[in-house]
């Protein structure tokens, strides 16, 4: 096996690992602050993806003009669709806006996801702090079904392709940058973007918690909620904001993932199960563990998909994440970086 093939698998694992890490990060944030197991987190990821779809739909909303000089195959005047943005901003600028729908959707998704997060926390999750974890799992699971079905009712059950901006279509010849033969290790540009984006978000969340006063209070609240409350700090309000941030992180992960995998209504559930495995492998309540486990499992999954490995152990690509989870949980009961006494009853 060549070194370049290994490098390629590491790169391939990074984008999926980034998605796992981002979702798991949000899950851990919610668990660490509010102590709630949120099964609707996958649905938030999915809603983020559909923010991109919605924005694309809004941007391509068109009016129809008749071109009398040309005719269609029935001999009637040709109908030409012109998106409103092209009308308003001129053709070049308009097309550029439509082309960049996915990055623009980030700006669109942040307020939407924050709002959804606040509503969810204040309207539902708030009442479940004192209830058993099983109840939390069940009610959020029900919520996830409801959210999925609403999306399905509006957007249908099929995958909706949302292309990346034209500038990012194509692949980076990563191998030639680090000294391999050209054309051996190639990596799509958008996946590079996704990885960098995920790293920025993760860094931002950690910096926010580490270097701001707000983050300091939140960390104190995670360690001992009661004492922080006794100091006269409204910790509930801050935790609500953290829930909104966690929702926004999941949403952004979804927005940027749309060009990699066209979204459909159950994509959230597909990611949720694995993300839970990621959180538990990383250690419940450990933010660093969630990110680490996300990338490790993502890369492991892509290694297991190599042809040589599958020939050696058939079917390993399907089960490697779960297998790794079982081994890690049995060897390290609290996950990779888990703390003592979290979620043990």
């Amino acid at each position, binding site marked *: 096996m060549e070194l370049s093939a290994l490098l390629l698998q590491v790169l391939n694992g990074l984008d999926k690992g980034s998605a796992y890490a981002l979702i798991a990060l949000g899950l851990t944030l919610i668990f660490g602050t509010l102590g709630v197991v949120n099964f609707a987190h996958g649905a938030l990821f999915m809603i983020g993806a559909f923010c991109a779809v919605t924005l694309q739909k809004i941007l391509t909303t068109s009016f129809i003009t008749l071109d009398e000089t040309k005719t269609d195959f029935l001999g009637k005047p040709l109908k030409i669709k012109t998106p409103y943005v092209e009308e308003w901003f001129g053709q070049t600028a308009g097309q550029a806006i439509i082309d960049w729908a996915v990055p623009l959707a980030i700006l669109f998704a942040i307020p939407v996801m924050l709002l959804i997060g606040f509503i969810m926390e204040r309207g539902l999750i708030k009442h479940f702090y004192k209830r058993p974890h099983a109840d939390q799992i069940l009610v959020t699971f*029900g919520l996830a079904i409801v959210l999925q079905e609403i999306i399905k009712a509006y957007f249908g059950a099929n995958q909706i392709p949302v292309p990346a901006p034209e500038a990012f279509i194509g692949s980076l010849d990563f191998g030639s940058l680090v000294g391999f033969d050209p054309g051996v290790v190639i990596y799509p540009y958008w996946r590079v973007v996704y990885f960098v984006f995920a790293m920025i978000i993760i860094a931002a969340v950690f910096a926010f918690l580490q270097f701001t006063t707000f983050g300091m209070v939140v960390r104190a609240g995670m360690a001992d909620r009661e004492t922080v409350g006794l100091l006269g700090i409204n910790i509930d309000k801050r935790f609500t904001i953290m829930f909104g941030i966690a929702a926004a992180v999941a949403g952004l992960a979804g927005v940027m993932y749309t060009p990699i995998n066209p979204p459909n209504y159950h994509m959230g559930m597909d990611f949720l199960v694995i993300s839970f495995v990621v959180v538990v492998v990383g250690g419940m309540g450990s933010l660093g563990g969630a990110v680490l486990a996300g990338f490790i499992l993502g890369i492991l999954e892509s290694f297991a998909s190599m042809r040589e490995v599958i020939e050696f152990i058939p079917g390993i690509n399907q089960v490697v994440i779960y*297998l790794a989870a079982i081994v890690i949980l049995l060897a390290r009961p609290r996950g990779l970086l888990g703390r003592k006494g979290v979620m043990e009853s």
Partner: protein
Amino acid sequence: MLGLSRNDFLLLLFVLLLVAAAPMFLNPFPEGSEFAQFNAGYPDLMQRFVIFGIFAIGFNILFGLTGYLSFGHAAFLGAGSYAGVWMLKLLTINVIPAIVVSTLVAGVFSLIIGYISLRRSGIYFSILTLAFAQMSFALAASVLTPITGGETGLQTALHDPRILDGAGSVGGNIPAPSLFGLEMRHSWQVNVGDWLWTFNVGYYLSAFVLMIAFYIAIRIFRSPFGMMLKAVKSNNQRLSYTGISPRPYTLAAFVISGMYAGLAGGLMVAMDPLAGAERMQWTASGEVVLMTILGGVGTLIGPVLGAGLIKYFENIFSKINDNLLHQWFAFMPDGLEDFMVTIIHPFVGKGWHLTLGLMFMLVVIFLPGGLIGGLTGLYNRVFRRRSKAR
């Protein structure tokens, strides 16, 4: 009687009556009437009520008594199904070996998974069982195709060896699963007035098995062993301090509930000799959790009730379409009629999952003890208030 207290015996009798008379009272609307689609008394649906009832009773022995929330019970159902179909293919078309072997295979399977998973508790246990189940699902759908039939599923075929009775069925048709020659799909239909009652062999076999399963569950709930399991749930640590290791008890509960799942899987293939990998997927595991919670965790009858309700809604709600809605609201003025149809439309037909999700949230939010918990609370409030005030 039968080693049960008076109340438990009455409960058993009640369930017996319920199951035996189900073909009649599940068809409350006359055939051909407007509401006939709400009738649930057809064999396929009734079989599912009973089989999922068994599955949920078994799940409740683990979750309700010990508090260990398994998210991988569908794997045992699937393993049982595969074992059952193989028995039908290799041994005989008689369903008895299929049902027995599927229970045993699921028992062995759950012993292995339980032995490993029960080393952890809480959410770690849930994730371990989930991981095992997802692994089984992925393997069954891909690599194990020679054994499981992959994504198309495993079913009986014309040229199966069937070493016990294969010689007799060389004819043109694939034989249907039967009990000593009595085919599972055979039904007697009785017309009483406008009502049509269907008495199906498969249903009554499943119902018979359900009664046995229910009886065993009652005995387990009331036994010293059951008390031990409840002790695990209420305070695992204190139990350890008294010098008793909870592990053998929880493992036994896990294996018993796995065998119940396998039994349900065996019955499923006895009714319809087809097993697919999707039976093992985590959504199927989630479903049985929902059934148990909806009915009432830790209660005897709750899981059966929950299973029945979810299966009923799944069938009936998904059948309602716009035409039907228009019929119902035809008595209203046109504008109002369309308005009502538009409002109800997203909740029925293909959107019945939305109703399920909402119903589920409402139950968890307002009735933490499930339907049985809610009913008990209501009963206490109505009949016991006076005595409490005194």
